[in-house]
């Protein structure tokens, strides 16, 4: 029967998106409007807080997901409200993961990674910091870019336990 939403999202052919686990999956879809970022922030904070991550991790995760959402809305969808941005969140004992998906033109990641926004050329540039912020604040950031059919960003944060060295790349 046709429903307002599918029971579960269809499985993806994107390598970086794991099979759906409906008992842990939280899905969120918004129109491409910048003002939705404030709502996204509250949602992510509530989710990560509920999952008992420490305050620094809550901020790092919310900040990073806002950067990914900003890119999807601005660069992926050129703020065309009718293009939806899809978020998928998954919490487990050790990690918080998010996938952020747009349907935009994609971009060349190696060009972005070749400039250091904290170096002398980058520091006073008014753009080019979003992906850098995600990579510093999260433990893993992966991109699946399919030219002409959008970008999926996968963000992962590990739960820091007492005495842990900051995990990372």
């Amino acid at each position, binding site marked *: 029967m046709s429903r307002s939403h599918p029971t579960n999202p269809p499985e993806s052919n994107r390598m970086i998106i794991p099979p759906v686990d409906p008992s842990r999956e939280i899905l969120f879809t918004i129109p491409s409007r910048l003002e939705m970022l*404030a709502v996204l922030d509250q949602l992510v904070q509530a989710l990560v807080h509920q999952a008992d991550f420490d305050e*620094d991790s809550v901020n790092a995760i919310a900040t990073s997901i806002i950067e990914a959402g900003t890119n999807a809305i*601005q660069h992926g969808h050129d703020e065309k409200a009718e293009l939806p941005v899809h978020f998928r969140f998954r919490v487990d004992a050790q990690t918080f993961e998010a996938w952020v998906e747009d349907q935009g033109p994609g971009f060349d990641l190696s060009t972005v990674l070749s400039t250091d926004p904290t170096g002398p050329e980058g520091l006073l540039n008014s753009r080019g910091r979003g992906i850098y912020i995600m990579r510093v604040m999260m433990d893993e950031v992966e991109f699946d870019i399919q030219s002409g059919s959008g970008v999926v960003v996968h963000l992962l944060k590990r739960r820091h336990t007492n005495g842990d060295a900051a995990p990372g790349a």
Partner: protein
Amino acid sequence: MRIKQDVLGKAGVIRLSGQLMGGPDADQVREAIAALVAQGTVQIVIDLNDVSWVNSTGLGVLISSHILVANQGGALKLMRISKRIESIFTVTRLNTVFQVFDDEASALSSCAG
């Protein structure tokens, strides 16, 4: 984002509230700064006390405003930033670009000289 502006002595104070994220926010900040510069005020303090977060587009707004004011012989300073916003400044090393003050008195006195 909402915006208010004051002139206190030599300093222009721009108070933001909500979130700072580019788009229409950028225009509002630019207009406020242009208005201050037009009346000769080039020592400008941005009060972020009521700003819950800034994204990288919002950082861009602050940087271009900083350059604009510096070109007029002035400076753009920040005050009262939250821990969350501080961490985005540290991560991006923009803490080496902007002077940041904990309270209004010290921010204003840095503009007086």
